[in-house]
């Protein structure tokens, strides 16, 4: 009897196929693009273009412990150690193409600065070195709670320019009917992804956070594709079954529920997982995979502009604090782990104030640790473990104090 296909197997198949297809396309002489992780993929999907994502690739390289040689290569070429490690890995890879999981070099690049502005210089560098066209969607930072009408108009005008540039690069016309279908499919996938993430509100949670990070890669690379919907349908079925059985993803049960704030610490992800599992701390939600929940009315260009503008890093303090406050409540969190990511200055910029706001509003316990999304040198295991254990001790003490109070209140004497 054939083995039942699990969502994890399907994810592995789809991710392998994603990278293989990119190589096949390149060999057939088709155009291949590189894009930033939350670029409006609807445009390239409509044009049926093969696109790979350097951030996703750098994360995979780091998780497979292949980051250091590329980082050292970038630094020896003159890139500062203070630059984003994804950028250093990718810029080195562009030269040497030395990685366990290879990606073909691009013929064009797509950059949207809705997650950070380092991307612009990084991508300009690629465009100059490889002498290829670059499409930029420049998204202004949202100092207010919502994008201004002027910002929406500006982004929409860039969408028009993006279409024009894609038509020039490919020599083909943009098909607006197909565009409508892609937007519809992208929303269906976003809704399914959101549903999967929300299922972790169950106590105990059926999934641990590191699995969320793995499934997330499909949203990064193929959120406008049919097979992504099939993957999440399967994942949702599995999660619902686990919930109905009251199954925790930890054998010894879930003692503490936390949110992981920020990007994964990819080079040490196994260590992080083991340290958390040992303490019974489960990452039940994260600001990271949530970033790829992009919902809008298909065909409504104002909404499309808004949704790509409202990415976590591009939003104001109040908006971010409200989102975190909602997650503390919905996911019944005991704490939040903030990854103070040396590579991501834009994320670290608001982190301490976010901690203060969220702790004051919810009373949730906060822990922060130093690390890096892809540079293995910026992390100390012992410090991470001490902070984790201290968080667990605080949560346990709080729970016992709460329990004693309840017993005292219920005591008729």
């Amino acid at each position, binding site marked *: 009897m054939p083995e039942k296909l699990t969502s994890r197997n399907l994810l592995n198949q789809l991710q392998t196929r994603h990278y293989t297809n990119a190589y096949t396309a390149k060999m057939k002489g088709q155009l291949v693009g590189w894009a930033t992780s939350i670029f409006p993929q609807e445009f390239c999907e409509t044009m049926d273009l093969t696109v790979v994502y350097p951030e996703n690739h750098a994360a995979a390289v780091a998780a497979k412990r292949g980051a250091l040689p590329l980082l050292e290569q970038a630094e020896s070429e003159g890139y500062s150690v203070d630059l984003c490690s994804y950028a250093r890995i990718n810029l080195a890879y562009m030269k040497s193409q030395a990685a366990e999981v290879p990606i073909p070099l691009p013929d064009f690049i797509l950059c949207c600065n809705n997650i950070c502005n380092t991307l612009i210089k990084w991508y300009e560098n690629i465009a100059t070195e490889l002498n290829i066209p670059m499409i930029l969607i420049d998204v202004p930072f949202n100092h207010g709670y919502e994008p201004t009408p002027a910002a929406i108009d500006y982004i929409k005008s860039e969408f028009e320019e993006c279409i024009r540039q894609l038509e020039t690069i490919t020599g083909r016309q943009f098909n607006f009917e197909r565009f409508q279908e892609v937007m519809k499919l992208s929303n269906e996938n976003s809704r399914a992804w959101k549903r999967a993430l929300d299922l972790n509100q169950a106590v105990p949670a059926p999934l641990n956070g590191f699995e969320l990070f793995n499934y997330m890669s499909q949203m990064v690379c193929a959120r406008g594709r049919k097979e992504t919907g099939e993957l999440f349908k399967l994942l949702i079925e599995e999660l619902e079954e686990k919930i109905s059985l009251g199954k925790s993803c930890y054998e010894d049960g879930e003692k503490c529920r936390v949110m992981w704030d920020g990007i994964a610490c990819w080079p040490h992800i196994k260590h992080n997982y083991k340290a958390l599992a040992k303490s019974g701390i489960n990452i039940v939600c994260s600001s990271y995979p949530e970033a790829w929940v992009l919902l809008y009315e298909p065909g409504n260009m104002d909404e499309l502009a808004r949704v790509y503008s409202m990415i976590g890093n591009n939003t104001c303090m109040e908006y971010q604090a409200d989102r975190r406050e909602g997650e503390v409540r919905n996911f019944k969190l005991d704490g939040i782990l903030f990854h103070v990511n040396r590579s991501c200055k834009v994320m670290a910029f608001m982190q301490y104030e976010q901690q203060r706001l969220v702790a004051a509003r919810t009373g949730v*316990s906060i822990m922060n640790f*130093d690390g890096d999304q892809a540079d293995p040198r910026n*992390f100390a295991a012992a*410090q991470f473990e*001490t*902070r984790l254990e*201290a968080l667990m001790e*605080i949560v346990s*003490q*709080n729970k016992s104090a709460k329990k004693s109070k309840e017993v005292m209140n219920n005591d008729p004497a």
Partner: protein
Amino acid sequence: MITAGVDIGSTSSKVVVLEDGKKILSKVIIPVGAGSSGPARAFEQSIREVNLSREDIKRVIATGYGRTHFPGADQQITEITCHARGVYELLPGVRTIIDIGGQDAKAIRVGQGGIVSNFIMNDKCAAGTGRFLEVMSRILEINIEDLADLAALAENPASISNTCTVFAESEVISQLSGGTSREDVAAGIVNSVVGRVAGLVKRLGVQSEVVMTGGVCLNWMIIRMMEKELAIPVMASPMAQLTGALGAALFAFESAR
């Protein structure tokens, strides 16, 4: 009932042996920490001094950086929770603990009953730690214990702007060779640690009463300058670097009871 707390830091090993969670029978500090013979030596000495053997100790709790590698422990608890417990025993009104150890600095918020409600640690860097003071004392050719007295004689405290210990070392050397007095440099070193750690405390929020624990609280100039920086009285823990071991011994008593 006899219990013991063993605090294995990065630069020293501390042990407190308690009787019935009240009376301190012995306390030992050995100036070498995790990964050395220090923890075992400190533990042996602490029980030998009062003619006890390991079998006489009902429960041992290890804390500190090297807590997971001490074979004689029945349980491990982090130094954050142990310092809070030790402080609560000694000074129950304390709400803010500043613990400056050999390799890290922490600001700890304590609620009623000595329960930790929040904490912040320094980033992966030796600035604002005991190690920083050790390195700088060596350049000044003094014992770390004499740093406070030397700094107190400063007329115009030097500004040590580098937070990186290696860069600050070159900065101090160049200040000394440029003619800045040793007293002014010593005061600059003290101010550098205070500035760095006060930043952590302010981020946590300063709440009275404030106490400093860890070996660095023996430096009275750091306490004085910290008070000035935070604009609030700062006490030194009566048991200084033994506070964490005391907390661990108390937890051992409470869990064995």
